[in-house]
C-alpha cells in the first residue's frame, strides 16, 4: 500500500475541525519547527526533501525559498496560490475542503522558514464555500494560539489572510496573483524583477501552490530525508493527482511519485481502468495546458520504456513524444472522443482567459478558437491546420506570462499527434459531425519532430 502523507486522515470524520485535526497529529510540525528548529533548518529540510512545486512548473521549492531577498527592515510575504483553475485540476480544492488545517499548518511552518509575519492564501473566487471552510479553520487556529502574536509562546508572530479572486484564470499566474491581491487588474508583471525580490507591495515574496505548502508539514514532521526516500530520482515524495475522463473511478489520488502510468490508469487502487471497457485514445497527464499524448505514448515512452508518474518520465521525449506532470490534472480519453473538439474546447478556455495584455496571446487565442471551431463544425480548410500551427508558434514563448504557452501547447500537441484526425475533419466534414475518428496510427518520432 502506497504511503499517504497528505490525505492520510482525509476520510476521518470531522478532520476539518481543529480538535479532530489536532488529535490526529495536527500542528506537530509547527511545534517542532518553532521549538527545535531555526528557519534555516526548515529550509534545509525542504531542500533535502527534494520537494518540487506542485502547481505545475515543478521548480525545487527549497531553491525557490533560498532566492527570497532579505533586505533589512523590509517585510517578506508568503502567498499561497489556491487559484486552482486549470481545467482537469481539482486536487487543491479537495485538500482545502477536507483538511483545511493541513494548509494552515503548512503556511505557518513555511512562513516561519521564510521569515514572513503576514501571509496570504489567494483562493479561486468560485471556491467560495472552500473559502468559508478556510476562514473557519483560520479562526480556530487563531483561537488556539497557532496564529497571531507570539505563537505558542515562541515569540514568532504570523497573521494569515484569505483573499478570494474574482474568476480569472490568469490570477493563478504568480505575478498576476500579486497584482490582484494588491487590488489591481490581474495582469502579469514583467520579470525581472522576480517576486522573490519585488513581489507583493514591492516586497520579497514567495508564491507556492497549496499542495506544495501542505507537503512541508510531513517534511518537517518526518525529516527531508525520509520524504526524499519516496519516489524516483528527482521526483520525490507524494503527489495529488486529479483523475478525470473516461475512467471508472475519477477522483483525487495521492500517489507516490514513480508509480507507473499503467498502474495508475488500470489498477483498482487508482482509476480502475477504462469505462465500459473502451480503448484508451489519448491522455492529458498534467492539466489542460500540457501536451496531449496519443494512445501509444501513454504507458510507454517513445523509447519503449515504461512511462512513470514522475516529472522526468512524463516529459521523456520532450514535446515531440512526451508531456508534463504539470499540476497533476490527469484526463483520460477513450476511443469515442474527438480530439479536434477537445482542442477547440481547451482553446475556447484560453481565449476566454487570456488577460489581453500581449498581442500574440490576446489575438492569437481568439483566432485559434475561431479556426478550431470552424474545423470542428466541418467548415475548415486544409490551410487552417497550418494556420493553427503558425498561430501557436507565435504565441509560445512570446508572451509576458506562461498563459500564452499554456494556450499554445495543447494545440501544438494535438496537431503533432493527431494531424490525420484534423485532416479528416476537413476532408469529410459531414462525417466528423456524426461520428468520431477513433485511434490514430502510430508514428515514429524523427518525422514529426517539429
Amino acid at each position: 500500500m502506497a504511503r499517504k502523507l497528505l490525505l492520510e486522515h482525509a476520510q476521518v470524520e470531522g478532520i476539518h475541525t481543529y480538535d479532530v485535526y489536532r488529535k490526529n497529529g495536527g500542528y506537530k510540525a509547527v511545534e517542532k519547527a518553532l521549538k527545535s528548529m531555526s528557519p534555516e533548518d526548515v529550509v534545509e529540510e525542504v531542500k533535502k526533501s527534494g520537494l518540487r512545486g506542485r502547481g505545475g512548473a515543478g521548480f525545487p521549492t527549497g531553491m525557490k525559498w533560498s532566492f527570497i531577498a532579505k533586505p533589512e527592515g523590509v517585510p517578506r510575504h508568503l502567498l499561497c496560490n489556491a487559484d486552482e483553475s486549470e481545467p482537469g485540476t481539482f486536487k487543491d480544492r479537495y485538500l482545502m475542503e477536507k483538511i483545511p488545517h493541513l494548509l494552515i499548518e503548512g503556511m505557518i511552518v513555511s512562513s516561519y522558514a521564510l521569515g514572513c509575519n503576514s501571509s496570504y492564501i489567494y483562493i479561486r473566487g468560485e471556491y467560495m464555500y472552500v473559502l468559508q471552510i478556510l476562514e473557519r479553520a483560520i479562526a480556530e487556529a487563531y483561537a488556539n494560539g497557532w496564529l497571531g502574536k507570539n505563537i505558542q509562546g515562541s515569540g514568532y508572530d504570523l497573521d494569515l489572510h484569505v483573499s478570494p479572486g474574482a474568476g480569472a484564470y490568469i490570477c493563478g499566474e504568480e505575478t498576476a496573483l500579486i497584482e490582484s491581491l494588491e487590488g489591481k487588474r490581474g495582469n502579469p508583471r514583467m520579470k525581472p524583477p522576480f517576486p522573490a525580490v519585488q513581489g507583493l507591495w514591492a516586497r520579497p515574496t514567495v508564491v507556492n501552490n497549496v499542495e506544495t505548502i501542505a507537503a512541508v508539514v510531513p517534511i518537517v514532521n518526518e525529516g527531508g530525508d525520509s520524504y526524499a526516500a519516496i519516489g524516483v530520482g528527482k521526483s520525490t515524495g507524494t503527489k495529488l493527482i486529479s483523475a478525470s475522463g473516461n475512467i471508472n473511478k475519477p477522483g483525487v489520488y495521492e500517489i507516490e511519485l514513480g508509480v507507473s502510468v499503467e498502474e495508475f490508469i488500470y489498477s483498482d487502487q487508482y482509476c480502475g481502468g477504462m469505462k465500459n471497457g473502451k480503448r484508451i485514445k489519448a491522455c492529458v497527464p498534467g492539466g489542460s495546458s500540457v501536451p496531449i499524448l496519443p494512445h501509444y505514448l501513454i504507458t510507454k515512452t517513445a523509447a519503449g520504456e515504461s512511462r512513470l508518474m514522475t516529472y522526468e518520465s512524463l516529459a521523456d521525449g520532450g514535446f515531440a513524444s512526451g508531456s508534463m506532470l504539470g499540476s497533476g490534472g490527469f484526463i483520460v480519453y477513450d476511443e469515442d472522443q474527438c480530439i479536434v473538439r477537445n482542442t477547440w474546447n481547451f482553446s475556447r478556455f484560453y481565449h476566454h482567459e487570456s488577460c489581453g495584455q500581449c498581442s500574440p496571446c490576446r489575438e492569437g487565442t481568439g483566432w485559434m478558437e475561431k479556426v478550431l471551431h470552424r474545423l470542428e463544425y466541418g467548415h475548415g480548410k486544409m490551410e487552417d491546420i497550418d494556420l493553427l500551427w503558425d498561430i501557436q508558434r507565435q504565441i509560445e514563448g512570446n508572451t509576458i506570462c506562461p498563459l500564452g504557452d499554456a494556450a499554445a501547447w495543447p494545440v501544438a500537441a494535438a496537431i503533432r499527434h493527431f494531424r490525420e484526425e484534423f485532416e479528416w475533419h476537413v476532408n469529410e466534414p459531414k462525417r466528423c459531425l456524426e461520428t468520431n475518428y477513433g485511434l490514430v496510427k502510430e508514428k515514429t518520432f524523427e518525422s514529426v519532430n517539429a
Partner: protein
Amino acid sequence: MSNIAYINNRPHEFLPGETILKFVKRIQGERTIPTLCDVPNLEPFGSCRVCSVDVALVQNGPVKTQASCHTPVTAGTYIYPSSDRVKKLRKNIIELVLTDHPLDCLTCEVNNNCELQTVAAEVGIRDVRYPEGKNHLDRKKDLSHPYMTSDFSKCINCFRCVRACDEVQGQMVLSMAGRGFDSHIIKGLNTSFKESDCVSCGACAQACPTSAISDVFESKSVAYDEKVRTVCTYCGVGCNLEVAKKNGEVKSIQAPLDAAVNGGHTCLKGRFAFGFYNHQDRITSPMIRKNGELTPVSWDEAYSFIADEFNRIKSNYSPDYIAAVSSARCTNEENYLMQKFMRAVIGTNNVDSCARVCHSPTALGMQRTFGTGAATNSIVDLKFTNCIMVIGANPTAGHPVTGAKLKQHAMKGKMTIVIDPRKTELAKYAHYHLQLRPGTNVALLNMMLYYIIQEGLEHKEFIESRTEGYEQFKEGVLRQNIDELESITGVDRELIRKAAIAYASSGNAMSFHGLGVTEHSQGTYTVMLIADLAMITGNIGRRGVGVNPLRGQNNVQGAADMGCQPHQGAGYLDVTNSDNHAKYEAYYGAKLPLHIGYKIPQMYDASLNDKLKAMWVIGEDMAQTDPNTQHVVSALKKLDLFIVQELFMTETAKLATVVLPGASFLEKDGTFTNGERRIQKVQKVVEPLPGTKPDGQIIVDIMNQMGYKQPDYNPSTMLQEISGIVPFFEGVKWEELGKNGKQWPVNKSGEGTEILHTESFKIGKGKFIGNNFRESEEILQNGKEFPYIITTNRELEHYNCGAMTRRTKNAEILKEDVLLICKEDADKHFIQDGDLVCVESARGKVDIKAKITDEVKPGVLSSTFHFPEIMLNNITSSVSDSEAMCPEYKVVAVNIRKSKGQYKHQPQTQLS
C-alpha cells in the same frame, strides 16, 4: 568583456542597465526594431511583442526569442534583431492585430503618421489570412468632450494611453476592462471623456499610436505646413510646445518628447487653450478715448498722443508722476525694454510687474537669506529627492506638469508633506497634511523648526560651515510658546512634529511653495523660514534638495530678472547704489533717478493722492485681479493718461484712455525664464493679427517717438544688450539657446547652472533670520465682525483673470467661480450645494454659488477669481506683506449668508 554584447555577431559596448531595444537602436539606428507598445517617456511594458529579437548565448547558437523593450542586455550574448524567425514573428503579430483594425487608412486622421501603419509597412504585410470574424470595428466614437476624442474601433490594446494616464499625469482615468479578445479601454467607470475625471492633459492622445484617442484639433494629423517649437505662455513651468500651423493659422499643439522641462507632457492650457489668439474679441487697433468713447486711431496718432502726454506730464509735474506695470506674460526682452523706457526715457523708477502680487516676497526673502531670489534647484531634481514639502501651493491645478511629477512622487509612497489650509489633490496623497488656518504659516514653520532643534536633527556641519546667525536664531525659535502656536495654527502639534522629523531626516528634501506662502502679510517672513528650514537641515546646494518657489506666470522670474521692480534694475542691482547707478547711466546713455520708485499698491495710493498722473500697463488685468477692486478702479479712473496694452478688452482696458493692441506669445519672438531659471526660446508661429504689434516693438516705437534711439525689436540683438548689463545673463546668446534653453547664471562661456549655492551662497554665508508670528491686520481689525476667512485659489482649467482661457473651450469645462464651503458651515447658514451665497467683507460683497466640499475646514472658505461675473476681489483687502508689499489675497475676513436675491427669487419661481 563585461560590457560587450554582439549584434549580428559584431561586438558592441552596452551601457549599464540598457535594454536590448535601446542598445540596438543606439548602435543600428532608430528604425531597426519596430515597436508598438514602447514609448520613450513611459516605462517598458512588453505587451505587443513586436520588438522581439533572437538572443543566443553563443555565436549562431540556439536562440531564445525575447521582448527587447524590457530585457536588459546581458554581457556576451548574441543578439539577432532581424533574423528570419523574428521577422516572421513580427509579421504574424501585426497580421493578427490587423484582423481587428479598420483598414481605412486613407480617411484616417493619422494617415501617414500612424505607428501601426508604419510598422505594418515595415514588416511587409500583404495579406491577412484570417477569415472575417467577430471584431470591434463597430465601437462608437466619443465626441463628448470639448477637446478629447476617442474612436476605439482603432484601438490596438497597446496600453499606451493607460500608462500615460497613470505614469505621466497620474490621473488613472483610463484603464483596461474585459479580458482577452474583449479587452477594451474605458474611461473612469466606463463613461465618456466628458463625464470622467479626465483633466484633458492630452497625454493619452499623444501616446496613442493610432487615432484611437486624439483631440479635436487632430494634433496627430500630418495636414500642417510647419511645426514651430516655442514655450507655453501660461504658468511658470515653461513647457515646450510644438505648434503646428496651416495656412498661417495655428492648427494644433503637441509636447515635444525631448523637452527638458516637460518631456512629452503638458496640460490642457498648454496643449489645447490656444484658441484665444485669433478670437474675435482680440483688439486689432489702437484706441484713444475721445468724448468718453474709446475710438480706433492709427498707430501714428496713438504714438504721438502718448508721447505728447508723457512729455506734458513730465514737464508739468515730474517723471515720478508716470508709472508703468510691465507684464510677466511678456518676454524678457520686452520687460527689459519696458524698464529701460521708464528709467532711461521717462526718468523714473516707477516700474513694477505682477511679480509684486505673487512672488515678490519669495524674491526678497530668498535674497536676504541666500542672496538669490530664485529657485535653488531644478525640477529634474525630483528624481533624486526622498521627500517633498509643498507649502501653500496647489501644483496639480496651478502648475500641472510639475504638479503631475509631484503627484507621481507622492503616489510612489515617497515622503510627501503638504502644508495648506485646503485639502488639495496632492494633500490627499500626502503622508502629512498640515491643514492650518490661513495666515498662520509663520507659526507652523516655527513649530517645525522648534521640533527639529528639540529632536537634535540639525545638520551641524552645514550650519557651522555654510551659515551664520544660527545661535541667535536658535534661541528665538526655542523661546516660542508651542501651546500658543498650536492653537493659532489649529494643527495637532504631534502631526507637525512628525512632519518636521520626516523633513529633517529624509536625507534629501525639496521644498516647493506657491502663493499660499507669499500672498500674506507675513509672506516674506514665511519665505525666510522656509529657507531656514532648508539650511538647518542642510538641504541646500546639491541634487534633490533646495527651496523651490513655483513661479506663477510664464515669465514672472524674467520680469524681475529684467529689472521691472522699483528698487532694483536689470539684474537685481540696487538702483540707489551709486556704482550701479553709474553703470546703468553709462549703459543706457541717459540720466537716471537714484531713488526707489512706486510698487504697484503705492501707485494706486499715489494716484488717489494726485501724485501720479499717468500709467502704462502691459498685459495685466488689475481691475479684476488686484485686491480691493473698488480702491483699484477709483485709482485708475483718476489718472490723466492710462495706457493699457492688451489682447482683449479686459476690465482694466475698459478704464483706459489709450488702448494698444499687443500680440500673443504665438505671434512673437523672445525668451521666457521659467521657475527653475531656464531661459527658453519663444518663437513666432504666426504673424501678429493685422493691426496688432509685438509688445516689444510697441515699446521700441514709443522710445523712438520720444527721441531715444532704440533699434527695432529683435530677440537676438536684445539678448545681446541684456547680456551686457545683467550679470547672470553674461553668456546668453539667442543662437546658442538651443531647444531646451539654459538655466541662469550663464557664465561667459555659455554654461548654465542647474543648482545654486553648491559651494557657497551668493552672499557668502547663508543667513538665519527668525521671525515671530503676528496676526494679520485683516483679522485683528475685522475678525470679530467677519468671523470667516476666505482664501483665494486657482482651478486647473483657467488662468488667473481668465482673459485667455475663458476665450477657449476651457470655459465649457469649467464655467464659473464657486465658493468652497464645508458641510458644517453650510448647514449653519442653511446653504445647500448650488445656492447663491452672499460673501461680505469690510470692502464689499459678492454673490457666489456654493459648492459643499471637504476640501476646507470649518471657518474657512475658498474661491477663485477667474470670472468677471463674480469679481471676487471686490471683497479682498489692501493689507499686504510688510516687506515686499505683496497683497494678502489668502486671508480675507468675511461673513456669509444665503443670498437674499436667490432666497427671494426661488419661492417665486416655484409658485409660478
